């Protein structure tokens, strides 16, 4: 039986019973190294960073294996550990950035620094937000009202489509709905928004 088809429960049970630990752990490693590596790759880490973070994830798996009780699927547990490793890395980077970053007393450098991090800049002294740069007061009001008037699930499907540009399939997964339901919601949303916003934005496509 190859490492890819051998039941994962058996590999873990043997490892936990102390049977051929290195070999059993190698099987887990070879089976899951690629998806964990890809998980970090997708989050924009360099090749070396991906390798180190994947390594760290598997070391955590090795340390935690004795306590793994099989309440969740192994894959879910592994994903949990990879996510924790990722979040720990983010916290670490954020702490480093804070420690090494000079924050000027006047606001001359703030906008530049924030923009370089790809974050929206909000001036706490003003009520202006990103929307104010795109629409005037009346348009803002009408758009907010039109979106708020949509039923909750429909509104969420619409925003996932427009803001996050997800496919129907992805929206269905995120919302735990069927793809057909998502299509129906988006069709309805388009009809309703057209009726309310045609004067401002013309034909609305989703």
């Amino acid at each position, binding site marked *: 039986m190859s490492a890819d088809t051998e039941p994962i429960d058996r590999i873990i049970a043997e490892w936990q019973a*102390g049977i051929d*630990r*290195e070999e059993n752990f*190698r099987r887990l*490693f*070879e089976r*899951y190294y*690629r*998806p964990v*590596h*890809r*998980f970090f*790759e*997708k*989050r924009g880490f360099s090749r070396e960073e991906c*390798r180190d973070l*994947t*390594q760290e994830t*598997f*070391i955590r798996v*090795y*340390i935690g294996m*004795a306590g793994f*009780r099989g*309440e*969740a699927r192994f*894959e*879910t547990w*592994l*994903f*949990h550990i990879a*996510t924790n490793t990722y*979040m720990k890395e983010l916290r670490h980077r954020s702490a480093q950035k804070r420690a090494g970053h000079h924050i000027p007393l006047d606001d001359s450098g703030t906008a530049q620094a924030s923009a370089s991090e790809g974050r929206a800049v909000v001036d706490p002294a003003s009520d202006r*937000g*990103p*929307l104010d*740069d*795109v*629409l005037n007061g009346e348009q*803002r009001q009408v*758009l*907010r009202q039109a*979106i708020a008037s949509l039923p*909750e699930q429909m509104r969420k499907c619409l*925003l*996932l489509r*427009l*803001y996050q540009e*997800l496919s129907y399939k992805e929206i269905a*997964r*995120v*919302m*735990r709905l069927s793809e057909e339901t998502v299509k129906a919601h988006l069709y309805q949303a388009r009809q309703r928004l057209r009726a309310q*916003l045609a004067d*401002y*934005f*013309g*034909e*609305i*496509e989703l």
Partner: protein
Amino acid sequence: MSERQERFKAAVRALMEEAALQEDAHLTPERLIAYHQGELSSEDERRVQDHLVVCRECTALLLDLEAFPALDQQGARRLSDAEVAAAWQQMESQIQPGETMGFFAGARQWFGAMLSPARLPYAIAASLFIVSLALAAWIVSLRQENQQLMARLKVSPAGQDRDLASIKRSLQEARRRLAEAARRDEQYQTQIAQLQQSLEELSQPQVNVPIADLYPQGFIRGQQETIETIEVPPGANFFALVLNVSDRRPYASYALEIVDREGRVIWRDRGLRMSSYDNFTLMLPRRLFPAGEYRIALYGLRDGRRELVDRYVLRIQYQ
């Protein structure tokens, strides 16, 4: 795409960025997984969705969780076998020193398992068996010593009379130690026999096991603390408790703790799941719970926090 359509999309994005700024934290991995597995209440589920709509990061994590472990089949170049093998070599060198830790962890786990109520008699029996073997070896060595002394006594000429008294004393001491070892061996053999009998009793099927249906304190509005009493007949080595739960809010898992009247923890366990009848059934061994009053606390575990769900009070009487 028309300019108006572009403007509409830009406006929605700007609207969402405003909303995103008000989100102060990402979802924890535990919460994300609980949502993915449909373990959240509908209210909680809505809150998670509210966050997902404005948070690209958490949405991406959720989609990856959905796709995991087939993630490596998406897009990017698949790592070669050689790259994975090289990574394993590096990994192998890092976990080798950890084997010692793994051994201790394994030993801890083994001792933990052996000290569990169900296996404790086996553990004691095994220990006594080992002690008994050691004593038997000691007895054999004393006998050999004794025989050597007797042989020396037989061959000793009259001129060695001065040694005789000391040899006799040694002989007496050896006999005394032999008798002491034999007496201890007999004691251990008796204890082993008693434990074997207990094991046989515990291995027998139990008929009409007493069952107590426990309702949490405060389950009936206005009622003061009630103590359920369970009467265990002489032949019953086990009895069962059904813990009915008043709080139906789902938790990722539960923990139980039983303490005696003096507040000593008699037993606890975590990572428990509620049965499909919204209760927990506990099979408790008689030998672990002497007659008396016990308090049982049921905790719900969520996001790494422990919340008290229900309390039960029980009195055990043996007939």
